[in-house]
């Protein structure tokens, strides 16, 4: 049976490859890829940076000869922070522009809304931003950090430092809620008693925990009451805060934190949604000593990273892109994972010898490595990446100082229910 399936797959593959080749022969010597990010609306501030780095990667590849002898032609579309529009735009990219691959999405809700489109029309999406897991589509490659590549190493680090109590706080949407549920299970499995987890629990009628932690709406500005609660929670010492607040609200949160007289030594905060790019519009001085956990930091001291940062700055200075910001730019993990995605796709295409989606996915699943700015990343059969994880301490400059690293962490999307008490 297995053999038969193999033969059939092979037949489809070669047919697909033939069709693909024919189609390409008719066109000129370029191949189109889609860039699907919000260039307007509330997410534009983060996602525009990803568009920039993607264009940079494509220019770099084109300058060195392209992919399979073809120049890459980027098709940039604006999702406008409007989730249904993301689905519409991805349909347009796949059907009208017939792109070979799409790089895009930031919020989990935008990814969830394009997922059925990519599955229906057999497209290929590279998704670059840390997310909550519990998903694995055959048509998506998650270069993003899975929960075990960000939240869990961070918690391990805090446990090692002797932290015993954890306060969970986040913005009220799918990523923080899911991540905190996974973390709750993980903490319990590490012997942290339920009473040492702050922020409150919500249970359904059967007593099953359905939500752990405190959640505030997007754009929330009043953290007085929550800070009083954290202070009370931390009074007995050895407490830490796990922060999944998104966007602007972090400013209000950290200002209130300072006003309450809390310090990073007493009650460290580890934030999962704050990278160097966010620090461009956050007061980094208020966050000195707080922790971040990503698979890349701009301050990484490797030749690959130095070259990447220098080349990107050089590209920015001359890039011919409408409204691009050239001054004061930084690099961060979602940007590097976007960049890695383009190169992994290129390597997979070259390995498969075709742009056909099924063959490329197969090549990716077989394990392809790329020496990116954050270290070597390797694709896995489960559509995630093996990569290095770093824990950093915030400096007044808005950069991170790396204080711990975990090498080659395997990306594991399905974590819920996998932890048992030791």
């Amino acid at each position, binding site marked *: 049976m297995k053999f038969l399936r193999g033969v059939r797959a092979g037949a489809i593959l070669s047919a697909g490859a033939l069709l693909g080749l024919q189609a390409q022969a008719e066109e000129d010597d370029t191949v189109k890829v889609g860039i699907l990010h919000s260039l307007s609306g*509330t997410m*534009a*501030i983060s996602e525009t940076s990803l568009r920039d780095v993607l264009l940079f990667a494509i220019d770099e590849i084109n300058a060195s000869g392209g992919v399979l002898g073809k120049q890459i032609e980027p098709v940039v579309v604006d999702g406008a922070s409007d989730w249904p529009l993301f689905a519409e735009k991805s349909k347009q990219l796949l059907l009208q522009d017939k792109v070979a691959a799409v790089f895009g999405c930031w919020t989990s809700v935008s990814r969830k809304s394009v997922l059925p489109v990519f599955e229906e029309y057999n497209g290929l999406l590279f998704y670059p931003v840390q997310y909550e897991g519990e998903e694995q589509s055959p048509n998506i490659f998650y270069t993003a950090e899975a929960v075990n590549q960000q939240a869990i190493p961070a918690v391990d680090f805090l446990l*090692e*430092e*002797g932290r015993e*109590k954890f306060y969970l706080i986040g913005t*009220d949407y799918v990523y923080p809620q899911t991540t905190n549920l996974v973390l709750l299970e993980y903490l319990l499995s590490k012997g942290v008693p339920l*009473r040492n987890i702050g922020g*409150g629990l919500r249970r359904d009628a059967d007593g099953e925990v359905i939500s752990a932690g*405190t*959640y*505030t*709406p997007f*754009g*929330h*500005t*009043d953290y*007085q*009451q*929550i*800070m*009083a*609660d954290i*202070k*009370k929670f931390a*009074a*007995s*010492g*050895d407490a830490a805060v796990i922060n999944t607040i998104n966007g*602007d609200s972090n*400013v*209000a949160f950290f*200002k*209130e934190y*300072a*006003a*309450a*007289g809390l*310090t*990073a*030594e007493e009650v460290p905060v580890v934030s999962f949604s704050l990278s160097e790019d966010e620090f*461009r*519009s*956050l*007061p980094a*001085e208020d966050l*000195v*000593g707080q922790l971040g956990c990503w698979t890349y930091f701009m301050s990484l001291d490797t030749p690959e990273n130095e070259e990447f940062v220098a080349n990107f700055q050089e590209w920015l200075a001359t890039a011919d892109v409408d409204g691009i*910001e050239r001054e004061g730019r930084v690099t961060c993990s979602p940007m590097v994972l976007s960049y890695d995605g383009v190169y992994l796709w290129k390597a997979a295409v070259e390995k498969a010898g075709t742009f056909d989606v099924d063959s490329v996915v197969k090549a990716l699943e077989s394990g392809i490595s790329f020496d990116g700015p954050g270290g070597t990343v390797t694709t896995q059969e489960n559509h995630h990446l093996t990569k290095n994880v770093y824990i950093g*301490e915030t400096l*007044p400059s808005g950069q991170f*100082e*790396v*204080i*711990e690293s975990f090498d080659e962490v395997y990306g594991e999307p399905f974590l819920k229910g996998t932890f048992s008490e030791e």
Partner: protein
Amino acid sequence: MLFRFHNLIISALFLLVSQLSADDTQAREIFVEAILAEGSEQTALVESLSTTASTLVPDFLEAWKRGDIFLLEADGSAAPTPLLEVEPEQEGGTPTYFRVIDGEEMAAGSFDPAALEMARPSRKTRRVFTMTIDLLALSTPNVQERADAALKLGLKRDDDILPKLILLRETETEPSVIEALNEGIAVSMLSHGTKEGQMDAIQLLRDENSIAGLDALKNLRHDLNDGLATHPFSEEELAKLTASIASIESYISWTDFVGTCFRGLSLGAVLLIVALGLAITFGLMGVINMAHGEMIAVGAYSAYISQTVFYSLFSESTFALETYFLFAIPFSFLTAALCGFILERTVIQFLYKRPLESLLATWGVSLILQQGFRLIFGAANRQVRSPSWLLGNVEIFDITFGFNRIFVIGFAILIVFGTWFLMAKTPMGLSIRAVMQDPQMAAAMGIRINRVRMMTFAFGSGLAGLAGVFLSQIGSVGSNLGQSYIVDSFMVVVAGGVGNIVGTVISALGIGVTDQALQPLLGPVMGRICVLVAIILFLQWKPGGLFPSKSRSLD
């Protein structure tokens, strides 16, 4: 934090170069050994650092933790030399290196900095860093640090540390440190003491209303229930423990109550200063001003501008940081008032008789202004730093009163008083009230109603600008700052009764306190929804708000 770290480096440098007491020499030797050691040996060496009397240890440990200690490989089989790296003062300079063992500076060129390898403490070792630093802090002359360290160590419930704390209590003379020691010892006693010690601790924690000790008491009760405790308790003793927990918990709920009232007042004060301008433009003048939020943003950006100007005039000095805010207050009032003036002259003056059209027009203006902010200041948020007198807090009975919150309450009182004075006691106020009540009659009496309207609208906008200055202190300044407050503003004004400033004051405070009181019970999201539902129901019951306007001229 930044300054503290700089001081650390400078003091470390000073000590490194100049003096080398016997204690320091010993500390250096142990420290070098620790860097070169591995595993549990390393941990033990770091722990032993706490027994040296050297003041260098915390700086060394901090440097090690931050990755500023490097190893210089020696030729042959000799052990590598640990070096301390000190960052250059200017950006782009080269760092200097000092030998840890004797503090000698390494001459540039005598080694290759690129070949240095960072000496990382093992994870186990890092865990004892803070404890070692705290143990050392027990003998510092600084009273506050000593007290903090005593409590922190006691909370660790470590039976190796407990005897040290007890020993220290006998020689300590400072009352606040003794208090902290007592609390810390009591918490440790709960886990490691004799039965008698435990009973004393239970009593002491109850007398002290120790929030820090509550967890330890609860843990003890858990252990007793699970049969894990070292000494079983009799019924009576258990009752004492439970009573102690209940007493601390009731103390906490008391602090929660008072704290919530304060936080409610401060949120109410924020809502009040945000809504007061609208109470005038919408409440008195009847203009549905959707651009009110953008007037707030104008105020916030003005604060940012004054900060930038002060920084460039006085080069980022402390003086600039401490004083720019005093300038920002009148400056934002004036810029926002000017914007209001322009808005009134160009758009609103033609729409006094057509309120629905003024809604659409001002909404359009608000969109234009938001895009304008993005064009001028960029899409990224701008940061406004707070002067030191707005940072920090006082703590009374375990309730934190932030200075910025105290300030906003005082600020709100001042603004309301100023508005009341203007409206009730000045000739200007008299003509404003006359024009608002009956424009034709006022005109017939010789009041230039156009001018009065113009001034009133500018004044209301100026008040919004004042709100913006304060909001810049508790959040970030961005183009959609106003959007997050516009709904709140209308809510406060409508619930308070359109056209009545007393109503606005009461409804702002009422909404603030209700919001803060519901938050711990229902969470911020549900709490907010409940407040909105309550306001809708209230308006069903009293459509005119708290203080409905009784004037006949307003329809």
